[in-house]
């Protein structure tokens, strides 16, 4: 009797189980949501779950500084979340090491969905050897911010898209006003600024096939000399000591910097906290235009037990109207979608006037020359640039030494 009841129970369980098994829980890890956009993330998940009954999304957040320490540890223990956020540089590392699921067949099977919803450049960044290993979530870039009041006061015409370094320097010299602590132009001397600035002079760090090192080319030496001369020779850019530990964005907001190359992530901050008229423009180049391009993407773990459901989630997060609208409204980075109407809300915001510059800059985007040993490359080159900045080495010597260091990493 007892045995029969028990068997019955087993049978009942067996019958019920499949129904339960359809309820899949996806684990998602993010750095961009905390702490300011958790409400938007919650709302996105709620919208997703109502559209996909049977799939639940659980998320964990970590601050940017700690995110990759945590992600690497859980990946090492084979406990990677089903889906996780990656910036472009780390995407390349994870893709190289085979940690990401190939989405190409899943996308191909997803009838009624086309990747044309994404900005093609931005989406291509998250593919490797013809495989789509992630979907692009958002992007940022760097443009020229300028203080209109300072330009007016000095009687200098505003920057235009035609400007080159020559016009920039001429304006900066007029704008610099040591008596009032005003500096004409600012760009930091570090690795990230360097790889973009050399591109503005037709230079590069690696050859296009990433097999040989081109960092010590004549035009790169010229470019680095120019970056340093703005500080030491022309004195239109403050040195580290002259900045006295204040960040360039705080100096800009205080009206002490007339032209600042910095990221569009500061648009909101400046709109609220800069008590003067300002606008943005394309960066001046030397022989050509070049602008930074930073992207965040979302990938599915190669070890995920539910790659299809995880894909549904990241597709929703990156391209659904609900998610895009929530992001634009909250200013939670800029979704990398191709539909101009979707980002109209972004362009419509009143300050600054020339918001379209953000999208124009994409036409001359330079992607960082990422290699497998990327973090070592950035540290090694950064150290040499610092030596040049401090006057310990000539620009030529620093770039020669950087070349040797990079060759050791390829």
């Amino acid at each position, binding site marked *: 009797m007892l045995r029969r009841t028990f068997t019955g129970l087993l049978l009942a369980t067996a019958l019920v189980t499949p129904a339960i098994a359809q309820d899949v829980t996806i*684990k998602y890890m993010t*750095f*961009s949501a*905390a*702490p*300011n956009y958790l409400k938007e993330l919650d709302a996105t998940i709620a919208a997703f779950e109502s559209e996909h009954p049977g799939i639940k999304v659980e998320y*964990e*957040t*970590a*601050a*940017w*500084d*700690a995110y990759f*320490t*945590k992600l*690497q*540890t*859980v990946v*090492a*223990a084979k*406990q990677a979340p089903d889906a996780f956020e990656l910036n472009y540089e780390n995407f390349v590392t994870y893709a190289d090491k085979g940690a990401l699921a190939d989405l190409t067949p899943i996308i191909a099977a997803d009838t009624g969905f086309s990747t044309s919803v994404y900005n093609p450049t931005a989406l291509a960044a998250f593919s490797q050897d013809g495989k789509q290993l992630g979907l692009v979530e958002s992007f940022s870039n760097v443009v020229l911010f300028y203080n209109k009041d300072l330009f007016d006061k000095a009687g200098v015409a505003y920057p235009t898209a035609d400007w080159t370094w020559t016009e920039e320097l001429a304006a900066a010299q007029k704008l610099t006003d040591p008596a009032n602590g005003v500096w004409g132009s600012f760009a930091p001397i570090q690795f990230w600024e360097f790889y973009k600035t050399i591109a503005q002079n037709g230079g590069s760090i690696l050859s296009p096939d990433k097999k040989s090192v081109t960092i010590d080319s004549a035009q790169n030496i010229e470019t680095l000399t120019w970056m340093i001369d703005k500080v030491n020779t022309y004195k239109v850019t403050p040195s580290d000591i002259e900045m006295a530990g*204040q*960040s360039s*964005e*705080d100096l800009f907001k*205080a009206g002490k910097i007339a032209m600042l190359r910095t*990221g569009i*992530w*500061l648009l909101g*901050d400046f709109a609220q*906290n800069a008590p003067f008229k300002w606008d943005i423009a394309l960066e001046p180049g030397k022989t050509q235009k070049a602008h930074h391009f930073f992207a965040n993407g979302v990938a599915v773990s190669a070890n995920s037990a539910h790659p299809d459901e995880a894909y549904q989630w990241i597709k929703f997060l990156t391209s659904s109207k609900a998610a895009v609208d929530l992001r634009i409204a909250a200013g939670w980075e800029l979704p990398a979608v191709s539909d101009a109407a979707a980002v109209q809300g972004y362009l419509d915001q009143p300050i600054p006037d020339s918001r379209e510059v953000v999208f124009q800059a994409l036409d001359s985007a330079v992607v960082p020359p990422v290699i497998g040993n990327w973090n070592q490359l950035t540290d090694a080159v950064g150290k040499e640039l610092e030596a040049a900045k401090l006057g310990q080495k000539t620009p030529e010597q620093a770039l020669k030494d950087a070349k040797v260091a990079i060759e050791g990493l390829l």
Partner: protein
Amino acid sequence: MAERVLLAGRDGPLPSSPMKGEVPAGASGTIEDRTSTLHLPLHGGGREGAVSISQRKKTPLRFADLATYILLILGAVIMLLPFAWMLSTSLKTRGATFATPPQWIPDPVTLDNYATVFDSVPVGQFLVNSAFVSVTSTALMVLFCAMSGYAFARIEFRGRTLLFYAYLATLMIPQQVTLTPLFIIMNWLGWTNTYQALILPSSFGAFGTFLLRQFFLRLPREIEEAAFIDGAGYIRIFFTIAIHLARPALATLAVFAFMASWNSFLWPLIITTDTSMMTLPLGLSALQGRWSTVWNVLMAGTVIATVPILAVYVFAQRFIIKGMSHTGLK
């Protein structure tokens, strides 16, 4: 140094503390030394400044006293500057945060930053988690270290020195490279995102064991001998006699253990997956953004995190001063 001195403290303050305990090798308390001198005053205070008392009777305010005050007050100002600045910044508006010249007295004073901290993260939940984890692991740490310290000091067994070296070795390897193996072990135990995973790794440590071993080495054996004659064993003597005599030393360890656990960042970061399990330093780390940090809000969070340990220290100060004198430094 204190928080890092401690405890294998599988970690410390942001972004990660590699500092583990250290090896006190006090005189007559060297690693292999088991006999050691027996000098031990069992009561601490009351003797300080004996020299100046007699002299003070003659001249109420001597030059030396005045100089002492001036030096101490100057030093105290320097010591308090950062804390004062932290407090002041936490009460400033965003615009005043980087005013030049810097404002020491915020104008206007605002509590908005504290409100922002409470709005953006569940501080209450973090505080409860931190308090629970810190108090529990401190209690366990003190208990386990007292028992093991007593065993190392009093019970002879083969391989004792070798085992002690194995304890000490755990202090000399940076946490950065043991973190991943520990996580794999926890995962294998199925303990990720649990309280025991937060508590247990900071409940053991060579520093505490060594600290208390040094104390027990110096306890006069005569005290225990009477009990031995009455037929009591080590266990009973430990729980009925030794642990009570060690109270000051235990209090010292407790404060250090509490500090280490409270400030711990890297391990909770790795082992928790759920916001509801996060401890305070981990939860507050979300206040530091990728592109920029709102310093006045971050400082409000730091004040919230610092005040509890300061309170614990002030409360236990007497125990620390008195306790230290019995932990084998003499």
